[in-house]
């Protein structure tokens, strides 16, 4: 183990040799040592650092409670929303958190369908992050309704007042899309954890722990028959979750795109939002995993190659987002609609121009550093870029929501939106909720999908074995043998 989170033992497994796939687990691990390493996070008493982090997160969560309490007692007037900007921080934060909640299920479902074995090291933590981000996201529409105690009216519940939500409104579609996504993501996450929970159950010494993990692992015995059914179910859930990953942010984009407001009404918005969501989600995964892999001693499992791959995805999706910005700008001019053209020029050079340029520099320019392999494999740089992307993606939603609403068709109705301290406090508080949940996850649930990592290791051994027979041998990069994804599925 290295002494600092910024250091990485060399050589790492990011070398490019087309004849061999580099190993996904380094450090000469055996199945047993993987179990020991991952379970120790949960089984050993928490470190001081964990307590400090938890204390801070929990305090910030308290801030969120205070802000929401004040809001509910007083009313949405405590926020900066007013005419003409009726959607302020709450919607921005909602879209921001939902976006972050895309990476986990993308990694676990879509990369699973694409047979990308490197997902196994990171999927568990990413999925957990997804669930918590969606919880944070769900908070905001709930409190934005004004009378939060009537938030359940968003669901089409039959009631004696014959009050129905407007089915033609994309805001209602959001309720369905996000709640479906949350349900499936939770199920998928939980199902993937069952074999690992059983491992924790079998190792538990305290009867309470044994009972709790026993309850959660619902009688998993690891029999052949159970594995067979389990893998079938996992595949089906992955196939069901895949369209959901794409649909959620598409529906979120409809909130804006179905309107006729310049800057909102454009046909590329759905795929552009999805790409942006993956972009921000991966950035958040990098933000979380870079320190976590150090503090939990997981550098052999969440290797540099995993991080490099994520950085490549960040770079790719960042450029897709850049493509969407450019296309929007071009069509705003090409369409010949003067208000549309104005909306875009106003975004870049109007009263909110500063936020536009924060967005462009963070989302489009900052990931360009990943053209250099040195940057892609440098922990400090990738951590900084991931923070930039998080900031940039928040500002993207700020630009879309605020600049279009503040300066629409009629100059006489223009205004300038200013958030209040309550707005800011609620947003900061949502990070408290997010990190509190994430720290609890680290503490009580298996951080790595042990069973899946072990499966890739056995493939790795099999491929190395076959290469040995071919007489080609593995490249001289440490003691690790190459892994070929083909030919040796378990």
């Amino acid at each position, binding site marked *: 183990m290295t002494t600092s989170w910024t250091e990485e033992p060399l050589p790492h497994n990011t070398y*490019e*040799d*087309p*004849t061999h*796939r580099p190993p996904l687990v380094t450090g000469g691990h055996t199945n047993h040592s993987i179990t020991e390493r991952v379970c120790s996070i949960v089984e050993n008493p928490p470190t001081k650092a964990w307590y400090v982090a938890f204390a801070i997160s929990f305090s910030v969560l308290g801030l969120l409670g205070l802000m929401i309490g004040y809001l509910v007692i007083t009313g949405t007037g405590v926020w900066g929303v007013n005419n003409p900007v009726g959607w302020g921080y709450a919607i921005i934060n909602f879209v921001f958190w939902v976006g972050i909640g895309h990476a986990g299920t993308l990694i676990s479902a879509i990369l699973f369908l694409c*047979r990308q074995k490197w997902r196994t090291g990171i999927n568990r933590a990413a999925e957990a992050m997804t669930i918590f981000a969606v919880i944070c996201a769900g908070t905001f529409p709930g409190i934005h309704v004004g009378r939060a105690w009537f938030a359940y009216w968003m669901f089409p519940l039959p009631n004696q007042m014959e009050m129905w939500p407007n089915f033609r409104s994309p805001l209602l579609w959001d309720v369905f899309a996000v709640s479906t996504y949350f349900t499936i993501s939770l199920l998928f996450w939980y199902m993937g954890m069952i074999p690992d929970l059983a491992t924790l159950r079998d190792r538990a010494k305290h009867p309470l722990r044994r009972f709790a993990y026993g309850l959660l692992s619902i009688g998993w015995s690891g029999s052949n028959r159970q594995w067979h059914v389990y893998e079938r179910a996992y595949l089906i859930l992955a196939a069901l979750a895949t*369209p959901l990953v*794409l649909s959620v942010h*598409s529906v979120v984009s*409809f909130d804006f*795109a*179905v*309107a*006729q407001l310049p800057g909102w*009404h*454009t*046909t*590329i*918005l*759905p*795929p552009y939002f999805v790409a942006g969501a993956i972009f921000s989600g991966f950035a958040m995964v990098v933000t979380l995993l870079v320190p976590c892999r150090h503090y939990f001693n997981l550098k052999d499992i969440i290797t540099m190659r995993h991080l490099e791959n994520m950085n490549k995805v960040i770079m790719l999706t960042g*450029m897709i987002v850049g*493509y*969407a910005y450019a*296309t*929007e700008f071009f*069509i705003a001019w*090409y*369409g*010949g*609609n003067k208000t549309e053209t104005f909306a875009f020029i106003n975004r870049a050079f109007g009263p909110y121009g500063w936020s536009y340029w924060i967005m462009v520099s963070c989302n489009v320019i900052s990931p360009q550093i990943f*053209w250099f392999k040195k940057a892609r494999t440098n922990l400090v740089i990738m951590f900084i870029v991931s923070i930039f992307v998080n900031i940039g993606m928040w500002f993207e939603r700020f630009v879309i929501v605020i600049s279009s609403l503040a300066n629409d068709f009629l100059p006489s109705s223009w205004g300038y939106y200013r958030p209040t301290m309550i707005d800011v406090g609620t947003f900061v508080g949502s990070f408290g909720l997010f990190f509190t949940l994430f720290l609890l996850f680290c503490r009580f649930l298996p951080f790595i999908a042990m069973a899946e990592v072990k499966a890739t290791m056995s493939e790795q051994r*099999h491929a190395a074995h*076959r290469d040995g027979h*071919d007489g080609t041998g593995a490249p001289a990069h440490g003691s690790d043998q190459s892994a*070929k*994804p*083909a*030919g*040796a*599925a*378990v």
Partner: protein
Amino acid sequence: MAGKQVIDVTTNRRHLEGLGTTGIGVGLVICVVGIILALIMNSVAGDGGHSEDHGDHSAATHEAGETHTDGHDKDAGHTDGHDGGEGAGGHGGGHGGHGYIDQYHWLHSYLMNFCYFTGIALAALFFVLLHHLAKAGWSTVVRRLAEGVAANIILMGLLSIPLLLWGDHVWLWLVEGAAEHDALLKSKEPFLNKTAWVVFTVAVFGIWSALVLVYRHFSIRQDVDGDVKHTHVLQKIAPPAMIFFALSITFFAFYYLMSLDAHWFSTIFGVLFFGGSLMAFMAFLTILCVILQKQGLLSTAITNDHYHDMGKLMFAFMVFWTYCAFSQYMLIWYGNIPEETGWFLLRQGGEQSIIPFTSDPTGWITFSLLFFVGHFFVPFFCILSRHVKRSKTALSVGAGWILFIHWVDMYYLVMPHVRSEHAITEQILIDVAFFLGIGGLFVAGTVFWLRQASLIAEKDPRLTESLAFENV
């Protein structure tokens, strides 16, 4: 699960040899059949006195509003939400009430098939770039075939010449002085003008051709020396090439398809064209593999596991196309802004009822609805199952349908601009004739490129991995 037996690629036939000549011959015969069919169509319907109709195109354009006296002008004039005499209306004026097999229709037919095959060749280039960008393994066995299909970009570049010469019969904004009477066209002049368009066409076809030749060159050189260095070089070029590809295919779609109605705009249009083309290319590649294997080539190298993956990509991009098409339609329908809805009204027979078969004399509403069913529901249920994707016969049927429906997609994009007032089936043979004409050349071109080298990347460092690939 036991690993697959190691396949020895040298036991496969990997060169077209005599089959190459046959293949080129077949392609040229198809092309000649297409030309003959086109000539027959011309002589049958050519007596309508079309030649005098548009001696002066710009004059015809200005008259558009008046010449539409047959009751259809409402649709055409309405489409772009402006005065008659632009967009579809302008062309309508050209052919008046006569038989309309004229150069408008001919060139639209040509354009539609040109875009169809250019899209497939471009998607093949994308497939090759993506292979290197993602450092993919499984696709190594079919990459050489994709390189062969991609090389047809050079052919398509040559086939763009008729459009460059007579484009003003297709794109109204190319007509001399069209912008004088149209404030919107005037405002778009920096983009929609002849010089920019010609320069764009020459530049993108030039760069695409150069990319294809570079990728083929290093790939074939590796067959000889087996040097891993070539793979590294191609992987290095892939990321910037991909950026260029994304931008160029977008603007290609804007110029060649979206600007058919120069007033209409949609930000997703380029993505939509790309998605459909990639879907069609995966189908083309599948059928190419099946045909080659039927001829005893690459018999053990390409396995059901590879077909499975090709089927998956075909399916994925079919769904992706549907997703983009839905985004475009739903948002425009919901927004209901006149300058956007015109494009769809043209494809739905104007303001008529949208209930099929009720008031649809031209068949366009029915066509649009069937098109959507055929582009999503039919292939969705056809190739969803893994058993279908792992069966050559079943997957070829699905791939054949995909190729057909992508052709219908091009018809849907191009043809309403010249014949939305006419029955959908009227004179459809001319479109088939051009399909055969360009398609025959495309097939001959593919075989021409394929026969120059081995059908498989012989010494690619990832070939072993690809041969051993198992889709479990």
